[in-house]
């Protein structure tokens, strides 16, 4: 008999940076109050990847995030994607101002509270932090094996092994596919180019069924939600939040735009003179070759 696989997914609430939604302050920094927050795009991919193990291995999925009370929106969205069984929100003033290390400390504590977890899935990185550190740090703190840039995985639950394909870079060569295996428990982060493969009719049918169920569950998502304070998690408040954060962001700079190396001119084709000029210029170029 197959034993149930327990999966934890770590997600993050992020500003919606898609076109038309993002709002900036005059100095070029993000206007957070005007910009709506959503489940971050990499978190969404990680959540999709967790749904794969729900469809294929009937995994029990717990999604967690650290953030303010309103971060439960991200959990709700994640539930819609992966039909999660539980949602965990780590929310406490003590967690405020955390860098990646302090965040990892909170999440580690949260995952420990979940009981036995076989696989933790995280996003590639966050779009507002871009560091990609939280995943590996949580793995290190939990003492789990870590695999990054995963684009496909399968689980051998009897032998407690995860088999993964990861997209890596070797000596300047990009997009090399590496196949790896490691024992569970493990933490994997998902590459943005992840594409799930549902190859059989029964997988497709189950996918649809669970997806529908997820939409229903999401209407009542609070029923699946548990909010944890620092005390409930049992973390030392000196190792989380601002006090637990060794890094300090001391400056955010706008990256100057590269100078254009080509010049553009817009030709108004309704004007004969301009058209003629364009024709002459094209001829010139062709003749010079």
């Amino acid at each position, binding site marked *: 008999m197959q034993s149930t696989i327990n999966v934890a997914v770590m997600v993050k609430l992020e500003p919606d940076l898609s076109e038309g939604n993002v709002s900036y302050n005059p100095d070029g920094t993000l206007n957070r109050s005007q910009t709506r927050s959503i489940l971050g795009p990499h978190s969404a991919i990680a959540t999709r990847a967790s749904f794969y193990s729900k469809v294929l291995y009937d995994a029990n999925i717990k999604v967690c995030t650290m953030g303010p009370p309103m971060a439960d929106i991200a959990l709700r969205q994640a539930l819609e994607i992966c039909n999660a069984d539980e949602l965990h929100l780590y929310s406490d003033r003590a967690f405020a101002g955390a860098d990646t290390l302090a965040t990892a400390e909170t999440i580690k504590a949260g995952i420990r509270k979940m009981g036995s977890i076989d696989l933790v899935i995280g996003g590639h990185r966050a779009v507002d932090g871009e560091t990609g550190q939280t995943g590996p740090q949580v793995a290190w703190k939990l003492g789990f094996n870590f695999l990054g840039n995963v684009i496909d995985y399968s689980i051998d639950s009897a032998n407690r092994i995860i088999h993964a394909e990861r997209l890596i870079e070797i000596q300047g060569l990009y997009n090399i596919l590496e196949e790896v295996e490691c024992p569970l428990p493990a933490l994997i982060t998902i590459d943005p180019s992840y594409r799930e493969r549902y*190859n059989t009719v029964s997988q497709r049918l189950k996918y649809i069924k669970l997806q529908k169920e997820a939409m229903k569950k999401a209407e009542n998502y609070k029923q699946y939600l548990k909010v944890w304070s620092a005390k409930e998690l049992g973390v030392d408040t000196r190792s989380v939040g601002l006090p637990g954060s060794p890094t300090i962001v001391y400056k955010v700079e706008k990256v100057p735009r590269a100078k254009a190396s080509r010049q553009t001119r817009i030709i108004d084709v*309704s004007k004969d003179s301009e058209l003629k000029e364009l024709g002459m210029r094209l001829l010139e170029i062709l003749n010079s070759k």
Partner: protein
Amino acid sequence: MEKYDVAIIGGGSAGLAALMELSKLGLQAVVLEGAKPVGSKSVTGGILYSKNYRNAKVYNVEEVYKNFLDDAPVERRITGYYLNAVSENKVYTVDLTDAHNYQTNFAYSVLMVRMNKWFAAQAEEEAQKNGGGIVSGVHVSDIVWENSKTIVQTDELEPIQVNAVVAADGVNSEAALMTGARKKFDVEALYQGVKSVIRLPEDIIDERYGLKEGEGVAHLFAGDISRGHNGGGFIYTNKETLSVGLVYHLDSLIKSPIEPYTLLDSFLTIPQVSNYIKDEVPFVKEFDRDLPKEEQLRMKFGISKLLKSWEELRYTYYSKTARRKAIESRLYKSEEELRHRLDETRKELEEKFRVSFVTNYVELEYSAKLVPDGKRALMDKPYKNNVLFVGDAAGRGVFVGTRIEGINIGIDDAARAARAIARAKEHNDYSEEYMGRYYGELINESPYTDDIRKIDFEYLKIFVNACKEIPTESLNLFLRLGFMLLQKATVQDFARAITKMLDQRTLLALIETNEAYVKIPMEVAEKIGRTVNPDYKIKPPSIDERIAKIRINDDPEPHIKILDPNSRFIKSMVQLCPTKCYIMEILDKERFKSEVVLQHEGCIECGTCSKETDWKHPKGEKGVTYEYG
């Protein structure tokens, strides 16, 4: 390999009904459908009938889907049915409501894609109880028989093993070719249908067609609309749209090819039709080119935003339900306020942006599809091995003059196929001899099969009665004789005997002539028609604009192979392809040698060119997806 009781190829109305019925009978069945979402490759006219045959059983839509009458997203209940004979701007209208109501419980106008979506949701729920369901975005590529196993292969998924297959893959059935159950249909056995869905506010439809809330009407057109081809046109009222289209005998079109969109355009511009579809639409003038670029851009954004809200306001104001909802949800205090906002927005468009309002119409979707002409396409043996053919795939449909029925027949076929398979399961015998033959018997018992094969005297009588005002001297000798016989009570028994004797094919060869489709209606209109004079001319969109609106995923691999670039048939495709996929290329100027080549694949899978091409549905999710159908 995974195993299922039944694989259903195609998730149109017939395939979905098969899933529903099989699931009700406790079988584990899966629909494998190329389109995503399911049903979005289907096109219909379309009126969905529920029939009432006194002496025979039919499986009607409301029996297959028990909550149909309460929940289904039907458009309008058709309460009036008219045939319009047209010659230039003269029209003579025959009221065929009685003929239409003959043996009919009800008829609803439907938009096939929306309807299919609902069918799919119901069938899927039922199928899940037995572990079955619908998989969309997969293309069935083969059925093979290996060591007494039936294996269905797709381009996307691992093969599955099944006991039986329902082929519900439409008029261009690939299953038919895979199994060798039939050849591709001949041009004589097909019609080409082309259609546009036109938007019109609900209240305007009610008022223009003289309808009460929820009521609908069907208008057919014959005569001077076809540029001499055999076929006719239709307008069906939906809730907030009209389905307007034409259906022509493909052989007649091959004889003298003409672009389907040219036919559609000339239909839309005949006075009677443009009166029915006309609407008030905004006309945006070109910007002054000397204005600074930023100013032009600003104007563009301003106009599009305002146009959007004008449209929203208008469709809310003119729709009973939307109006009610908007007031209930306190979006507007009253109807007056809504009206006021609408007028204000319009004024702003006129004054600020110099937008004018003209008479034209709004086309939402252009589509085309072949229709099997049941009386010539009907498969005598709609089965092969353990594969049962239903609906268009089996060439079934009653398309006789003004009777156009395909959806209801496909649903009935599907219910019969499900019963044959359930019995086969009980006896564990899925052979052609046991299951196939039994299905054949069930199909033969279907009153539709009789309707496809024979003329129904009672229907004919009602039809002729409705036409009693028409002066018989405009008819040809044969038709005049027929009409007179049918109208004279004393010789009706004799007439009945003749219609019983003659099968459809013989009789229709006499009736389905250019004379009946074109000349007689024109003559009738000229002699006794009324004059319709519009004071405007509607301007249809160009074919390029139409194609641009259709959702076609680019498929980098060509999926159409021309078999003979020089055949007469393929040469006619240069004109007959509804989306201009072919061109004639001059190969040798001196000898004027030319060949047909595929210039692009804006293919909407209508199937018109299928006869002489290696024509496949594009793989998986690729290809056309209609929004209305």
